[in-house]
């Protein structure tokens, strides 16, 4: 029997407080003391202001793929005779702690499907990612407020899509109804709050049914992979679509499914660390080769690569899985308001009118 609880709006803080003692709790919160300012997933500490009402600016990937992660540290010891015989002492990264993400939306969790396919179920398993992934539970909020930029339904998701989530949260007028979907999430709800009464339960179920029927966004992504391949050579198509692009890293850094990273050794005399940090295919240095040649010298090739990676390369490689979760963050944050739906939408038409 599914375990359900109802958290009244005014008791939310105390519940979160309690929950954070049991497990590392991450919630969407304001990053700046401005109600309409940027938000992101932050580890719960008393005093931060939650921001459940809208999609976060920064994606969930910051938790599973931090912007900067020390893979290993190394230290040379010189033997006294001065010859450079050195030994290297490595230290393994600290163990990942059990974590609960409370308040992510379905598109956030949907993105993990792509990340899992690459980092966990692909030919090379990333130990750092997998360790964090296994230790993280997701309490996903059924999405009530979608806006003109969202299109999760067109990429296989939906406002009520609970794939990969362990708990479901339904936002009611006066509070939140939390229902455990998987067994290992049930102990979490123990003695948190009392079970919901019947009317709220039914209301929640109605809302969930409604949400799962709702179709968000109308982007047609059917066989966009071959369509992309036809457009690949047509430079003027890309020029007409994204000439205004600034080639900055915003769209890739706010995108939940962009996972590219760069590894550098930052050394200082005898010690150093191997650092994994976010990188963006929109940067010139991303594909700059030692010879000075750059296979993607201009922003048009780079944007083409970004679209291709999500709507062509991943689908062809991972049996039709799309590398995009339809959250619309790249559209909202783009300094020049490029809409990826337009670029993908026009892939198919043979004449490329705006």
């Amino acid at each position, binding site marked *: 029997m599914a375990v359900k609880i109802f958290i009244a709006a005014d008791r939310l803080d105390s519940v979160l407080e309690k929950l954070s003692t049991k497990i590392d709790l991450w919630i969407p919160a304001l*990053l*700046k003391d*401005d*109600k*309409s*300012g*940027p938000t992101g997933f932050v580890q719960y500490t008393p005093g931060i202001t939650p921001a459940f009402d*809208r999609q976060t*600016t*920064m994606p969930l990937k910051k938790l599973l793929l931090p*912007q*900067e992660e020390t893979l290993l540290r190394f230290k040379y010891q010189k033997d006294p005779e001065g010859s450079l015989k050195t030994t290297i002492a490595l230290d393994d990264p600290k163990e990942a702690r059990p974590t609960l993400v409370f308040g992510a939306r379905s598109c956030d969790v949907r993105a993990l499907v792509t990340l899992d396919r690459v980092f966990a179920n692909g030919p090379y398993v990333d130990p750092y990612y997998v360790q964090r992934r296994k230790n993280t539970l997701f309490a996903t909020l059924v999405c009530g*407020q*979608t*806006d*003109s*930029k*969202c299109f999760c339904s067109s990429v296989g998701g939906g406002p009520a899509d609970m794939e990969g989530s362990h708990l479901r949260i339904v936002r009611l007028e006066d509070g939140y109804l939390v229902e455990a979907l998987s067994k290992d999430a049930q102990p979490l709800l123990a003695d948190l709050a009392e079970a919901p009464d019947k009317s709220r339960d039914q209301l929640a179920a109605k809302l969930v049914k409604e949400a799962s029927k709702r179709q968000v966004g109308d982007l047609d992504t059917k066989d966009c992979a071959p369509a992309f391949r036809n457009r690949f050579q047509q430079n003027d198509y890309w020029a007409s679509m994204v*000439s*205004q692009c*600034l*080639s*900055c*890293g*915003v769209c*890739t*850094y*706010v995108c939940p499914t962009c996972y590219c990273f*760069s590894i*550098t050794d*930052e050394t200082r005399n005898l010690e150093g660390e191997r*650092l994994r*940090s*976010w990188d*963006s295919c929109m*940067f*010139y*240095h991303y594909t700059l080769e030692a010879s000075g040649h750059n296979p993607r*010298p*201009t*922003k*048009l090739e780079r944007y083409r690569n970004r679209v291709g990676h999500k709507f062509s390369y991943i689908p062809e490689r991972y049996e039709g899985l799309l590398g995009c979760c339809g959250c619309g963050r790249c559209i909202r*944050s783009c*300094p*020049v*308001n*490029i*809409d990826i739906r337009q670029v993908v939408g026009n892939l198919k038409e043979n004449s490329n009118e*705006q």
Partner: protein
Amino acid sequence: MLETDRNQLHKCVEEALPELDMMIGWTRCDPLQTTPVFIRDAKSISSLTLGPFCSQNLAGYLVKPPALDAPPKPDAKPIGICVKGCDSRSLVALIQEKFITRQRVRIFGIPCGGTVDWRKVARHVELGSVKSADVQDRVLVIEDSTTTHRIALEEVLSRKCLGCRHPNPVISDVLIGAEVSPRSTGMETSYRDVDELDAKPLEERLAFWQSELDRCIRCYACRNACPLCVCQDRCIVETREPRWLTQHVGVPEKFLFHFIHAMHLAGRCTGCGECERVCPMDIPVTLIKEKLNKIMEEMLGYSAGLDPEAVPPLLTFNPGETEI
């Protein structure tokens, strides 16, 4: 009033387009926002628009990659470009530094009554649900699914516009619409925010920048949006040769990144505010450059992007100035 200006713009562009290589302007892509557009054929001229929602500074497209590595052929036709007051100063700055010649551009100057900062609109209205938005004599009228909101334009203007001294283009071939009286002429209003932060004690200023820059994700949108950051593809912030910065995302690295951006713009920045507008983390980075602009104005009596012949102050010297 906006309507007549827009028609006048369309008419002027139509006349000029045959002589132009292309026309850079804005087009509406969202009730509250515009996107730059590059027009080469007559039929898409109608998509051009102007007004308070046109916030991007288009001057960068003339010089930044890929234009950087494809210098214009001597007989190349000029490029048409729409510029507001602050954007026009960017053009003058580019001419000053010989990135473009005056003949390279056909400038359509548009006196500007201030641009709308969508973040401030978000404080009044749920952005996602906005159906249409328009400005009627200094009032922003927004319809969303349920109600019509009327917000005074003054409430939602971008921060840079509040102290604007150059609403009218300082350089233009064609002027679209009537001139606008500057909101302030003195330094007090245009550097009000700088003075406010300067008045705080040192520790508080450090704490302010630590907390603001802690949010920075080093996405370099501010650098790539800046019309004067022409060397964005070879920026020392990213290169390992020479190695100024590591890939760490600690506060020191972000401090140094913003120091580098500010010092490279010292005496060049025209205060167009793009860096702040594009920051996904809403960090007031233009404030940093405004402080240096204030120093340049106080110390050397110099403002960038006003006189095409002037030499940026840090690229020259005056043996006599012992008093600075």
